[in-house]
């Protein structure tokens, strides 16, 4: 940390200069355009009470099909295989677990506005996983999001390290590659033991009936936008759940609302590393509803969001 702190110092000293901030945005845009297609590497993930090691492979074949494989290297065997962003296979110690594939393409949001919610600061050139990296700090301009430090590979733009901090500057989570290579990645690396695959459920299967109720957020922090055009309804054990996710380009939270048939479900608050979870039971004339707000936002923000949600009868 000693040199990165020196760079942070430099970033702080120059943060007053908007020209430097603009440069950081330009660098970020360039890096985003220069995404590497094929790479592999191993990385660590660390948050409160969790330290795990992982291996990942990313390969785009001749037809442009993007395949990704993620493998947890310690603890229970957990493996995810994705094709074009859709989860097609999960290896999990509990075969009864429910996994959904992702077939909700988000809206194509314009993240040029990021600078309205974060001050983008140039930290400097760093080195991660034996690669030269460029580090920038997204410092939030209000209390509804966390600071994020990202170190991106100079050649490929892939984020090789990211640190999420809380409002006191304490580390909430660390994601960091240990080795990274853009060579020798082939289709053979993407082979998963398909015998042990849990096939994720299609969200569209068993189209849920139209809900007789709808929910609304009474408050949304500035800069956050809904990811989907409308909230999505899906099912867990025949229970209909209405879900929408919101993002400001970096931070994200999701809202889940369910009509409650269980009598006695208590509200709770949890903090799983960077992720705040707030549940709230809402008793209305229509019945009881369970509201869950979950995301990498400060707990106070999640709490306020949960409190602002109102249920209405659908016409």
């Amino acid at each position, binding site marked *: 940390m000693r040199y990165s702190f020196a760079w*942070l110092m430099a970033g702080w000293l120059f943060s007053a200069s908007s020209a430097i901030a603009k440069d950081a945005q330009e660098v970020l845009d360039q890096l985003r355009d220069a995404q590497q297609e094929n790479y592999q590497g191993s990385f660590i993930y660390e948050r409160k009470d969790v*330290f795990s090691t992982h291996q990942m492979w990313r390969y785009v074949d001749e037809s442009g099909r993007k395949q990704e494989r993620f493998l*947890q290297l310690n603890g229970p065997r957990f493996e995810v295989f994705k094709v074009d962003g859709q989860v097609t296979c999960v290896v999990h110690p509990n075969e009864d677990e429910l996994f959904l594939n992702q077939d909700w393409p988000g809206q194509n949001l314009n993240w040029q506005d990021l600078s309205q919610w974060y001050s983008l600061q140039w930290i400097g050139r760093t080195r991660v996983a034996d690669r030269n990296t460029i580090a920038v700090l997204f410092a939030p301009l209000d209390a509804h999001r966390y600071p994020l430090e990202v170190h*991106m590979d100079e050649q490929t733009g892939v984020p090789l390290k990211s640190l999420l901090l809380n409002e006191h500057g304490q580390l909430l*989570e660390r994601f960091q590659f240990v080795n990274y290579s853009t060579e020798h990645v082939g289709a053979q690396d993407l082979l998963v033991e398909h015998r042990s695959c849990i096939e994720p459920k299609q969200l569209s299967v068993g189209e849920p009936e139209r809900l007789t109720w709808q929910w609304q957020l009474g408050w949304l922090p500035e800069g956050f936008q809904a*990811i989907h055009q409308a909230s999505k309804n899906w099912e867990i054990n025949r229970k209909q759940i209405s879900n929408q*996710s919101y*993002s400001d*380009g970096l931070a994200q939270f999701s809202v889940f609302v369910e009509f409650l048939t269980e009598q006695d479900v208590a509200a709770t608050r949890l903090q799983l590393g960077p992720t705040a*979870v707030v549940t709230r039971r809402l008793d209305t004339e229509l019945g009881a509803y369970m509201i869950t707000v979950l995301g990498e936002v400060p707990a106070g923000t999640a709490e306020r969001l949960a409190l602002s949600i109102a249920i209405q009868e659908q016409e």
Partner: protein
Amino acid sequence: MSQTSLEQSLSALMDGEADDLELQRILRESDNPELRAQWQRLHAARWSMRQEAVIPHIDLSGRISEALQDVEMTSSEKPTQPSLWSRVGKVAVAASVTFAVLGGARFYNNVNITEGQAVMASTQQVAPALAHSAINPVVLASYGGPAQDTATSQVSDDSSSWYRERLPAYFRQHNQQTTVSGMETSLPYARAASIEGR
């Protein structure tokens, strides 16, 4: 000792990574006004990163000088061959100097933090349902105390089964929909993995 390498040592000290040699260099130069100004700037920078409005002015050099004077007095009073006990005493004084620096830095860095919280921030509360199934991993000393089980004592079966069923599914769904500003990152997968099989 160049000013640059001294400043690097100072930066290392702030990050808690300075070795004994570096600490000695800093202490030797503790009257150097440039070094003291740098110490203040480092703190101001860190403070600004946390977006704190007020920057308290804390200068530990007085305490350090006092501790060092004690060392000198001990050695001048007893110019004879150092015994084992005097060496123990010196170690103790040296430790107290270290404590004056590190303890002060710690106070400075953790003004809003109660004793016991450490590197990894945020308290981990365990959901009523997860509390029954979770296997608490070994907690490293520097990561604060073990996860506090704040589950209520009477958890109904409804509550338990609801949380056991919903939270992992919600967590997965949330992470599957996470995009970080169009960047290709494995972070959402890693976050999702952190609750699997636990």
